[in-house]
């Protein structure tokens, strides 16, 4: 690898890489993101390599494991270049056929292309599939083309030209000006204007300053930062170096959770490669700018995603927040000016510098510019990562991109913002996503978790779930958070167990108010949000739990019973065989009955009862009918009598 010493040399190397990577040469790109790997992508990659070798095509056809393509629902995803044919849910058994038919014969394997579940309409290219068609994938789109372990792949797409532009054609102040002009707002939490934060650090006294990537991704239902870091680590690194230049920092840190070993691995490789090419180290691209990056693995504490706690953790201590009368941008790691930004924020920086602030501001709303990646999960047909311009309505994200709710169930709410966010009801589906729009309705953007809930999700339980998470994660430093959350959790748990009392809602509101005002860090201050937003939009569910001891969503274990309708049970024995607690009294030709005292309410019978019978039901707020008498349980089969 040659060290690159000037923008001219960079362009020459880039051209050479481009000419070597014969654009027309067929290449099999297999998604190796966490979702596809869990669905067996590693085996599919191995099968492709073996089959291509077997058929003697190894010189003509390349294979590449790439970062997350986003369509996790239908993984493993395989894309064949240059035709861009997209095959979904590919199994190792399909590989020989793909190689013979498509790679050799240029013929499409129909059963592996996208088919719309409702209309049956087919689409053989990624760009034609509704899931992708309705997105604008500026940040995550490159994942599809890049082997994350290859800096050359990134450079072939123009990687590090933004760095060269920033260092050699622009002053640090101009770079800062461009970011300010773009109105880029932080993708990790509150949506703070990135340029303003940079400027604060730049103007702060001190020679030693730091820039930091927040890759702690604490939101328990989201994986977009992981996918950017795993799939395109150089984009984050390039953004960080540019940020260092603009702020006047010579050292960067990446705080990445150790639960993401692949992200750590790919990042380490990226740093090594960037150093060899001279994008990191001394006198980068001959500009005189020196910059190095250190990776700090987070050891698992949600609170360490908070800026002051994260910086304390980087110092090697227990990550507890501190009051922020003085911003971390002025006094951060070792009391030096430190700029902290989220993974996706950094990944946007090279795009803004390369294409200009005016390009960036074309997308989005007046106050929220650009695109945002969401981790669209839960009760949704197309689980995956989606990137849409700010200002897209929730309805479009959930129904156009996400394909709606599975199983014909009804949409109930969407939760955004993780444990600090809230639930947004159906009546607000036309809300345009943006930082201020989401805050206005009692939720927040957060880092981009978007969990879809249907009529089977209990909203009281959702509030309880998040407070349970936070009770565990509160660092314990301040009372309103440590004790307040614990008390709120206790009351909410009681309500979901049918032990709720009149006055509980008011008590919860009081605790919420205190935590919201008095907690030290945003973990405690925003902890009441899941409760407050569900109360605001779903108060009747709280009341049903408390007054009628009933869970309207039929979800809270202590408030429901499983019951087999004797008129519908056909004694197929499916449930009785699978019940882990042996709680079903049944047998051949005998109507099954659940012994309620043995039942652990695991719901297996409800899930396995064949849909043509639908004999198992859930009951809440009413007594379970008494079991039918022994003698009435025998089923005489008409067909056999004849």
């Amino acid at each position, binding site marked *: 690898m040659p060290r690159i010493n000037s923008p001219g040399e960079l362009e020459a190397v880039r051209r050479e890489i481009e000419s070597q990577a014969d654009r027309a040469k067929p290449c099999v790109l297999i998604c190796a993101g966490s979702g596809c790997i869990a669905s067996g992508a590693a085996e599919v990659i191995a099968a492709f390599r073996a089959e291509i070798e077997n058929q003697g095509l190894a010189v003509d056809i390349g294979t590449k494991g790439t970062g997350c393509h986003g369509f*996790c629902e239908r993984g493993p995803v395989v894309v064949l270049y240059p035709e861009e044919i997209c095959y979904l849910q590919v199994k190792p058994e399909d590989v020989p056929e793909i190689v013979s038919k498509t790679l050799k014969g240029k013929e499409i394997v129909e059963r592996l292309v996208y088919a719309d579940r409702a209309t049956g309409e087919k689409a053989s290219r990624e760009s034609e599939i509704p899931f992708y068609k309705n997105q604008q994938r500026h940040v995550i789109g490159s994942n599809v083309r890049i082997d994350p372990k290859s800096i050359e792949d990134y450079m072939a797409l123009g990687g590090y030209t933004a760095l060269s532009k920033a260092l050699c054609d622009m002053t640090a102040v101009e770079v800062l000006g461009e970011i300010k002009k773009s109105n880029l707002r932080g993708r990790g939490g509150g949506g703070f204007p990135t340029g303003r934060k940079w400027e604060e650090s730049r103007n702060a006294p001190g020679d030693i300053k730091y820039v930091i990537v927040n890759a702690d991704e604490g939101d*328990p239902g989201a994986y977009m930062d992981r996918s950017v870091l795993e799939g395109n680590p150089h984009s984050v690194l390039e953004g960080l170096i540019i940020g260092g230049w603009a702020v006047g920092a010579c050292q960067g840190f990446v705080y990445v959770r150790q639960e993401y070993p692949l992200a750590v691995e790919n990042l380490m490789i990226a740093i090594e490669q960037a150093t060899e090419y001279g994008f990191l180290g001394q006198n980068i691209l001959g500009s005189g700018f020196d910059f190095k990056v250190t990776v700090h*693995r987070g*050891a698992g504490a949600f609170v360490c995603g908070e800026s002051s706690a994260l910086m304390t*953790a980087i110092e090697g201590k227990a990550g507890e927040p501190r009051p922020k009368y003085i911003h971390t941008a002025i006094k951060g790691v070792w009391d030096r000016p430190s700029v902290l930004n989220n993974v996706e924020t950094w990944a946007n920086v090279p795009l803004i510098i390369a294409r200009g602030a005016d390009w960036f501001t074309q997308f989005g709303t007046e106050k929220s510019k650009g695109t945002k990646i969401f981790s669209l999960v839960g009760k949704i047909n197309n689980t995956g990562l989606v990137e849409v311009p700010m200002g897209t309505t929730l309805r479009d994200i959930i129904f156009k991109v996400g394909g709606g709710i599975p199983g014909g169930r009804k949409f109930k709410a969407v939760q955004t913002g993780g444990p600090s966010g809230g639930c947004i009801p159906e009546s607000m589906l036309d809300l345009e996503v943006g930082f201020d729009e989401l805050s206005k309705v009692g939720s927040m953007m957060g880092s981009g978790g978007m969990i879809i809930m249907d009529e089977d999700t209990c909203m009281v339980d959702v509030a309880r779930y998040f407070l349970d998470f936070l009770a565990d994660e509160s660092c314990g430093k301040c009372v309103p958070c440590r004790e307040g959350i614990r008390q709120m959790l206790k009351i909410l748990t009681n309500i979901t167990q049918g032990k709720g009392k009149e006055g509980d809602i008011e008590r919860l509101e009081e605790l919420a108010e205190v935590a919201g005002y008095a907690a030290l860090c945003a973990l405690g201050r925003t902890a009441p949000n899941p409760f407050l937003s569900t109360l605001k939009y779903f108060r009747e569910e709280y009341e049903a739990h408390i007054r009628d001891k009933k869970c309207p969503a039929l979800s809270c274990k202590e408030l429901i019973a499983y019951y087999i309708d004797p008129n519908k049970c056909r004694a197929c024995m499916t449930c009785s065989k699978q019940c882990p607690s042996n709680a079903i009294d049944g047998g051949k030709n005998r109507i099954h009955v659940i012994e309620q005292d043995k039942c652990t309410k695991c719901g297996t019978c409800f899930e396995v009862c064949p849909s043509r019978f639908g004999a198992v039901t859930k009951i809440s707020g009413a007594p379970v009918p008494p079991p039918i008498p022994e003698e009435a349980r025998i089923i005489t089969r008409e067909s056999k009598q004849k």
Partner: protein
Amino acid sequence: MDKEQIDKIVAKYHGEPSALIQILLDIQSENRWLPGEALQMVAEALDVPLTRIQHIATFYKAFSLVPKGRHEIHICMGTACHVRGASRVLDTVEGHTGIKPGETDLDMKFSLETVNCLGCCALGPVIEIDGKPHGRMAPAKALEVLKNYE
């Protein structure tokens, strides 16, 4: 773990006390738990008080101060898995193994932990055993999977 192994890890970070968390993570990943003697050795090598090390080892979730069982069960309690019924899976696994999250059974067969999003929500509820994800779990199915581990 012997002193030599610990010294090697400490040397990788040039004996920098600020690398304490990184050093403990390396020990945790090699040894799967943090024995008392190892912490003592780290304290001496870095010249930091043992109490500070204990503070860190108990503050962060990645560290275990007790040995782990032969198989590590991680049940995803991420939001997506939660709304798809992960807690019913957890209850059933708890009932079957007799242990709660954070515990190891007496035969040292299973250690149980809950984790957050494993990045494969499309397959939720997900459980991971010894690093291998098992998707679309349901209570009875999870017990079937556990049967494969000795």
